[in-house]
């Protein structure tokens, strides 16, 4: 079947990309001269502590990000006429882009001892970690949950109005059931993002009390040079996420899909409208403050001299190249996976559909350091790895972007499939034509969102490029890090602002170009 083949191909590639490097690393463990640490480390109190702290901070971060996000997304959904709505939603895509080290500085600018809302020493610890994680993930969750409101049929809104439902009842009968499709996936994604968060935890965490699995893996691979241990820890992290994924996805209800026109619901009372606006304002302020601090720090710095550096422009070119290529690759892979998954869901094989989605999402949890180093091990006997920097970085970033594609595109594809698949079969609308006349116009918006998100994510990536990059192939994120390491903190601030502005521009452009400029409010 033409759906199954490309999907299986993608799945095979994913498995290969994740498992082969790990196998390569494990294989190293048996070479003479390398230490193979005793693998019964689960008896270590230290590792137990690391494990539990990792889970605890990720869980808390996920809850504190997603629960308010639901309220904020709802506020956006119920206020379609809000001025600057589109601009605000674009702003919400930015935190994802910010490299962790810049984010840490920004959070400190706002909440540190000399900041606008000084928290003093209590910032360093779980508080700081949560603040930073919510800054990253609340806007993302809002962006991912918002389209769900579009899935509510128009007549349901009318009915609710006629039956005299109040706000709570509308939530209970209309909104919550639709949300249940997307919510578990979003929680899982945020959990994974927070679990693998590295620089934030290490710097804002206050000390080794706040060590996570990701740090332990980093330590094993770099400082101890114990590849076997690193792989085992990575597998442990993977296993942990699988467990969480199974639990959250069990809670997911794929709704009975009916052919529906969407509608914009009317707010119930002026009080509700005011509350919604207050919520949106609060979220905007929370997200905006650190971003604003980046801007302010930058304007203090040597803007002109940074702009006139040739390295900067080369970095911008590299950044764009990597971002766009990674997005293209990621979205293509995700597309094939999701088409297959949508077909499965439609045919009633919900478990199969969920497994496919899960496979695409879970790869995020394997640390890029492990994949990168493993790839290096596999490739270096055969090719000069430095020639392959860009393809490797692009492919790893594409891998990291896949869960986002699945979150953005999944629900829309499923609905689209349920509505129109039979029609397509009956008029033999297949392949390219089907894409051009059916999927492109109807899936443009979530597709645009997915491409835009993955692009800016890859543009802001520091972890992967730092493994292989050299100044010739530097991206903006790497440039910032290099500047920071050379006392050039004002310059780094300017470069960080440039990165943010570039990402904002690219995001807006992609969303507009691909997503289209329809009047649809989602």
């Amino acid at each position, binding site marked *: 079947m033409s759906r199954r083949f490309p999907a299986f191909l993608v799945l095979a590639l994913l498995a290969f990309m994740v498992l082969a490097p790990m196998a390569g690393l494990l294989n190293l463990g048996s070479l003479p001269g390398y230490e193979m640490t005793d693998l019964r480390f689960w008896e270590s109190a230290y590792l137990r502590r690391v494990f539990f702290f990792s889970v605890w901070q990720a869980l808390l971060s996920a809850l504190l990000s997603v629960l308010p996000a639901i309220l904020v997304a709802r506020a956006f959904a119920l206020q379609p006429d809000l001025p600057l709505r589109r601009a605000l939603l674009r702003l919400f895509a930015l935190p994802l882009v910010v490299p962790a080290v810049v984010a840490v500085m920004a959070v400190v600018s706002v909440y540190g001892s000399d900041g606008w809302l000084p928290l003093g020493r209590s910032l360093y610890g779980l508080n700081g970690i949560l603040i930073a994680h919510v800054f990253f993930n609340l806007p993302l969750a809002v962006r991912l949950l918002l389209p769900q409101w579009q899935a509510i049929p128009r*007549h349901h809104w009318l009915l609710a*109005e*006629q*039956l005299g439902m109040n706000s709570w*009842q509308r939530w209970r009968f209309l909104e919550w059931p639709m949300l249940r499709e997307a919510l578990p996936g979003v929680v899982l994604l945020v959990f994974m993002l927070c679990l693998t968060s590295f620089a934030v935890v290490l710097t804002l965490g206050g000390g080794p009390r706040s060590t996570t699995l990701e740090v332990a893996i980093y330590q094993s691979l770099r400082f101890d040079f114990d590849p076997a241990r690193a792989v085992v820890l990575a597998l442990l992290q993977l296993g942990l996420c699988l467990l969480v994924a199974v639990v959250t996805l069990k809670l997911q209800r794929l709704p009975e899909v009916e052919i529906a026109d969407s509608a914009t619901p009317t707010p119930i009372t002026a009080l509700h409208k005011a509350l919604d606006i207050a919520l949106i304002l609060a979220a905007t302020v929370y997200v905006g403050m650190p971003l604003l601090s980046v801007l302010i720090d930058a304007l203090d710095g040597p803007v002109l001299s940074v702009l006139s550096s040739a390295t900067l422009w080369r970095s911008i070119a590299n950044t764009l190249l990597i971002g766009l290529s990674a997005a293209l690759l990621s979205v293509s892979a995700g597309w094939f996976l999701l088409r297959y998954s949508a077909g499965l869901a439609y045919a009633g094989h919900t478990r199969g559909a969920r497994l496919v989605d899960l496979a695409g999402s879970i790869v995020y949890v394997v640390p890029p350091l492990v994949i990168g180093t493993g790839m290096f091990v596999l490739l270096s006997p055969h090719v000069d790895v430095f020639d392959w920097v860009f393809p490797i970085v692009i492919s790893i970033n594409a891998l990291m972007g896949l869960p986002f594609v699945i979150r953005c595109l999944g629900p829309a594809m499923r609905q689209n499939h349920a509505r129109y698949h039979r029609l397509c079969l009956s008029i033999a609308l297949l392949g390219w034509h089907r894409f051009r006349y059916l999927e492109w116009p109807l899936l443009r918006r979530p597709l645009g969102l997915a491409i835009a998100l993955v692009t800016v994510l890859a543009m802001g990536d520091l972890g992967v490029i730092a493994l292989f990059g050299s100044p010739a192939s530097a991206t903006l994120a790497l440039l910032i890090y290099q500047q920071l390491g050379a006392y050039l903190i004002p310059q780094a601030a300017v470069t960080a602002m440039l990165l943010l502005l570039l990402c904002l521009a690219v995001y807006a452009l992609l969303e507009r170009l691909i997503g289209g400029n329809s009047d649809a409010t989602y």
Partner: protein
Amino acid sequence: MLLIEGLEFAYDVAPAAPMRFELEVADGEVLSLIGPSGSGKSTLLNLVAGFLPARSGRILIDEVAIEGLAVAERPVSIVFQQHNLFPHLDLYTNVALGVEPSLRLDSVQVEAVRDALARLGLEQLQRRKPGELSGGQRQRVALARALVRKRKILLLDEAFAALGPAMRAELIELVKELVREQGMVGLLVSHQPRDALIASARSAFICDGQVAASAATAELLEQTDLPKLRDYLGSM
């Protein structure tokens, strides 16, 4: 009695053809509205229900003006062609929502819901979900909810369009019975002139945003002096 006087409306989208309706329906009567697509039939129902705001004019129910009231305050129940039910709730709950959206029903209300379901032959199915029912059964549930709400006006917006002729006839008869029993006022929009024949002693032909003709159903369908009506009906 439902009296619509000089009810005016125009959509925001250009070119906006202004619409103006005048209508009268007696208690216990079902008035059928026929006419081509885009003529304003559904718009009229939406205006009565309050989903659309009229520019001017009045809607009087037993001499009481309702055009200023919010949707939930109007004595109206509406049945759509689809999406009348919440797919994740069982039939009983779907009907109960019509009585009290908080779903806190007293024993009298519970009885009323049970009775309504029984009246429509759905008693055995009350714990099922809409996904498990046929189209006809789903529309019955919607009718049960309308019944249980005991509102004066019953609007049917192509509610039976997706059903087979026998089922349609059966449900229309049922609607007639309910409307007569409860002294309700019914407005039925349909594309099937036969539906009008079964449902209504009188029917109205809506065209270009106005009530172009109103007469006894059989006569209306035979009328020859309205070219637009002839175009719509074709050869029957």
